């Protein structure tokens, strides 16, 4: 839903010669500035600094949801703080780290637009979301049902079971100003 509908910003400050370029600190700053100007609330509070070697305080942050293929590029961005450098343990399980006011959550099924760049490379969609930017509406009092019927319901000989699923859930952007799709290619 976010890939189809959300507003976009192309990364343009990279040097890979493509459109969009690879992600850079300037692109992250542009997204954060836009969300701030649109009065989006951050989702996570800051993490205060502590007197521990190799750690750094982490700003309050918007979520940035993206593909795990971007992890190498994220590592190379100026100001990147890996979650093992946070002052306290407790980074989210899927979290990779933070840059400025974005904390990046990665997934192997993160959104990718195939052959979406100027040079024909895959474009990675990084959904940068503020508080309550989108919602899921459960229409019949449930989101999804996985239904198993044992063989006894199939027929007099109870030969076949059945399995199925159904959804009664609709995602919806609640305020388009609070979600941005930062599009990037790989370096």
């Amino acid at each position, binding site marked *: 839903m976010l890939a189809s*509908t959300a507003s976009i910003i192309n990364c343009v400050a990279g040097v890979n010669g*493509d*459109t969009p370029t690879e992600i850079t600190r300037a692109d992250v700053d542009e997204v954060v500035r836009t969300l701030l100007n649109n009065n989006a609330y951050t989702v996570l509070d800051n993490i205060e600094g502590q007197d521990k070697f190799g750690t750094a305080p982490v700003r309050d942050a918007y979520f940035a949801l993206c593909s795990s293929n971007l992890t190498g590029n994220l590592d190379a961005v100026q100001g990147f703080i890996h979650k093992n450098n946070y002052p306290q343990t407790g980074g989210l399980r899927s979290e990779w780290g933070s840059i400025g006011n974005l904390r990046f959550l990665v997934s192997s099924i993160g959104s990718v637009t195939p052959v979406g*760049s*100027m040079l*024909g490379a895959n474009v990675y969609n990084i959904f940068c979301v503020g508080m309550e930017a989108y919602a899921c509406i459960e229409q019949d009092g449930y989101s999804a049902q996985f239904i198993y019927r044992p063989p006894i319901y*199939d027929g007099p000989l109870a030969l076949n079971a*059945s399995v199925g699923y159904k959804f009664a859930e609709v*995602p919806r952007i609640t305020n*388009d100003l609070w979600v941005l799709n930062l599009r990037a290619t790989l370096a």
Partner: protein
Amino acid sequence: MSDNTIIQQGTFVATGNDVILPLRNDVDWVKVYNLTNIAAATQWAGLDFYWQRGMAQDDAITSYHAAATQAVSLSTCATGYNGAVYRGISLLDSSDQTLGPAIAVTNVTAANPPLALTANTANVIANSTIIRLYSLATGQQMSSMDFSVGAVVANTSMALAHMPQPLAGGAGFYRIVNYNPLYYPRRRWITGITNAAQAVIRTSVTHDFHVGEQVRFIVPAAFGMTQMNGLTGTVVARNVIGTTGNNTLTVDIDSTAFTAFAFPLAAAAPFTYAYVVPVGENTGAALTLGTNILDDATVNTGFLGIRLGTDNVTAAIALGSAGGTANDVIRWIAGKSFAHNVVPL
């Protein structure tokens, strides 16, 4: 009757192009009957087509008239007859966002609309197909954009129907975008905005905005009309007949005094495209204009279905293909069945 033996049926009149039938559930077998060809006695006309899971995509077992009589012979679409192979039946899953193969574009001409010259227009349907251009040698500002195709000259050219500004692009590639993004309403790239009391916007791909919907415009500085950037407007009129010069939406924004909209030159890359994004519904306007106030509702448009292939250029191939010839009356039935994998004794 057990689950997994759900049967669906339907009928349609062929258009001369591939026919896509969204189904309520997946299918394991499909039968297609071309009533027009069955009634006639046209030599090499395909009569019926049968496909079941396990067969190759775009294949089918088919019967046909081997002579100009009602006598019937059997073959498969892939094997063919009369020295040709034919289009059969394929399973479709629109959640698959894989694009078509890369096909060379020899040039994009600075016509109005621009023409993408190519020696291969297979499966490109005039006023229907969406293509993605990329790696254009001198048209970086159009590379990675999707365009609805207008007029097609077979294996020669495709018009970028909704690109009002003539831009040369040089050589590159295109791929067919098989399916729209899954969710409606969709964001679309802008190729033109007029200076008018009610601005008229054209998008590169045939849009699906409706009257009464509210939309927001993002117009980066590279496109000139920066006054439009960030504004929201209500759609008051639309024209989506997919031919050159159409595919517009009119909004209640007075752009008369705005800087002219101009597509950037290649040197401006990289930049972010100008686009229009749906943000909601102007309920009052929708009611006044007599449209559905739920037109902006988010909908997952994904489907499982089948494609009945045909050939919109070569009539002899269309005659023996599952999708038939324009105006053929076709009936179909499709169903689920258990896979019986017991080794025969």
